[in-house]
Every structure is written in C-alpha cells, then in structure tokens.
C-alpha cells in the first residue's frame, strides 16, 4: 500500500507543481468568455 499511497502523493505533487507553471484557468478562454457575455465585474 506504500506504493499506492506514494503514487497518490505523486499525482498531487505533480498538480501542485503544475499550478506554478501554467495558469490554472485558461486566460484567453476567460477573455473570450467576456465577449460572449461573461461576468468579472
């Protein structure tokens, strides 16, 4: 079970590292959403 737990930790670790490398919400898609009547007042 240590391998299973370590793999879960690896998944979370990779996600946590990815957050520092790519915007977690697509910036251009949010801007495009504004043109379609989005909100961010």
């Amino acid at each position, binding site marked *: 079970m240590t391998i299973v737990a370590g793999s879960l930790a690896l998944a979370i670790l*990779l996600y946590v590292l990815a957050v520092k490398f790519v915007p977690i919400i697509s910036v251009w898609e949010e801007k495009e959403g504004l043109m379609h009547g989005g909100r961010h007042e």
Partner: protein
Amino acid sequence: MTNPAPADGPQIPKINRDLLEPLLSTHWSYFLLVGALAGLVAAGAGAWSYQFRTGIGQTNLHPPVFWGVYIASFIFWVGASHSGTFISGVLRLTKAEWRRPVTRIAELMTFISLIIATLFVFYHLGRVWRWYYLIPYPNQREIWPNFRSPLMWDAMAVFTYATASTIYLYLPLIPDFALMRDRIEDWRKPLYRVLSLGWQGTQHQWQVLETAMRIITPLIVMVMVSVHSIVGWDFGVSLVPAWHSTIFAPYFVVGAVHSGVGLVVIGMYILRKVYHLEDYIGQEHFDKMGKLLLLTTLGLAYLYFAELLTIWYGNIPDHMWVVDSLLSGPFAVPFWFMVACVYVIPLLALTLPAFRRRPLGVMVIGVLINIGMYIERVLLIVPPLSYPRLPFNWDTYVPS
C-alpha cells in the same frame, strides 16, 4: 473560438492579474506541502525498489488472486483521466459556455492521472525491466508481444490516450504560454518562449488553432470512450465468474466519468479556496457539476443494477458465489459502504438544488464518490478472483 484581443477593457487587467497571480507569488506553506508530498513519493519509490529486489509476491498477490490493488489503482487512475476529456471535450463540443474556468483544471488532471495510471502498469509487471514486451512492434516471427494479452491492449490504449491528451492539453495552452512569455521575467521565460511556438496572436494563428481544436476535440472524445472500453474488455473477455459480461465496457466508461467529474469538483473547490478564484468559479459551476454528477450517478446505478440483476436471474452457482460474497459475505461491509458513497448519498444530496449550490457540499460528494469508486474497483477484482470455479482453490487476498 474567437480572437479575444479586441475585447480589451477594464476587466482584462483584472483577469490577467487574478489568473497569473498563482504563478507569480508563493506562500511558504507551498514549499511545506511540496516537501511533505516529496517525502511520501520517496517512501513509495523505496517500497517499489524493495519490490524489485524481493519480487511481486511481496504484495501478497498469489493464485488464485493474480490481480490486486495495482490493477484496481490502474483502473481508478485511467478513470480519473476521463475528467479532462469529458469536462473539456464534451462541453467544448456542445459549446457550453460555463466550461471556461473548469477546462484547464480538468485537462491537467487528465494528463497527470495518465502518468500515474501508466506507473501502475509498471508496478504490476513485477519484472519491470521487461516492459518493452508491451510495445506493439511488428512481430512477423510470431514471438512476443502477445497481442491476446489484455496488458498489451492496456498499454496500447493508454499510450494512445496519453499522446492525444498531451496534444489536447498543449494546444489551448499556446496563447497562455505567449502571455506568460511576455509578462514573466524569471527562469521560466526561455521555457515559455519555446513552448509558445512564436505565438503573436495574429488572425491567422487563431484560425489555425481553432482548426486544430476542431479536429482534436471529437477525436479525444472517441479515444476516451475507447480507452476505458478496452480496460472493461480486459475483464469481459475472461471466463472468471462475474467478469464474463458484455456490459463492462459502458459500465467502465460511465464509472470513469463519474469518478473523473468528482475529482474535478475536488480540484475546483481547493483551487478556488486557495487562490481566491470566487469571481471565476462560482456557485453556478458547482451547480452544473452537481447535475453532471447526478447524471453519472443515475447512469452508473442503472448499469450496476443491470449487471447484478442478470447474474441473479441466471442463478449460475459460480457467479452467485461472488454476488453472495458481496451482498452478505466477507465483502459485505466494503460493498455496502461503496453503495452508500457512490450511489445513495450522491443521489439523495444532488437532487436538491440548494445542496448543489453549496461548493463545500458538492466537494464532499466528490470525495465520497472517489473513495467509493476506488473500493468499487477493488471489489470488482478481488471477490471474483477469490471464488474461482473450482471451490478447492478458493482463497482471499489482503494487500501488503
């Protein structure tokens, strides 16, 4: 897809600031979390190294239970990878506008889940240095690889899906890589310069990106359905009691989407809370995700009921031993706990509109669904293998 450049207005700087903030500033607790996770990963790597030296028997795998938590985890993580494809691909195809803040969260989950799922194939191999037998090279001499082996099918399916989902993650990232190339002035800048492929946001580039997305989106949805169907066939083509069923492919696909959507809800809640993204991920997004979870709960419950009903009606003793072990035998406690987590609680909670608009509540349902789905994957494997057709061979399995 339209060129968002002309939409310049007072909201654009706020979007840039809010969404790039997680990349620009780091709290000390982030490093603490990374350190703790790295420690757990190192412990897992140590255990894998021990398994190399002592053999896969250390995991308590033994006849008749030749598949255990590794295969259960493989199925679970392949299922989790359906989150991005379903949320992003299907919603993009149906032009659901509310998908926008959720797609990247889900696509990243797909990519990372596939890495983890692939690792479980290697763990399960035991003698991992012979992994190259899984590569589908031409075998005119009729030697290995064995194309009749489900492990071989899994390798082909997962590598195809991993390739497609990497492209699917990367394409919509190009404009964002270009934005970061222009705004971030640290060690990451050269990397963003390479990854942005010279993106300048011209009309032609947007048209090319739009065409590429129109091609890859339906393809990735088809690959998503096929990949978990193949995982379902691993079981369906065998003669093991309670596995020899034609319903496994749709059952696996719907189950995968069920746990995948649950995982995305967990990610949405945590990221919204940590990075204060309430202006982007609102209650309506949790409401919509809650409705999706309700849909998958109903679909999965129907398939699971149909599977159990046909076994019960057929009343074949070999199959009934397995079903009895789940309903009232040694696996009854985890089975009924799984039923509560995956079907009963989500169904009762998510039918209430007021509940679906509570982010914490929907996130808790996502956690319960994923705990339940993992147990379901273990119960799918261990009880049928514990009760083979010849009773003298019955045995049980507890992972080490």
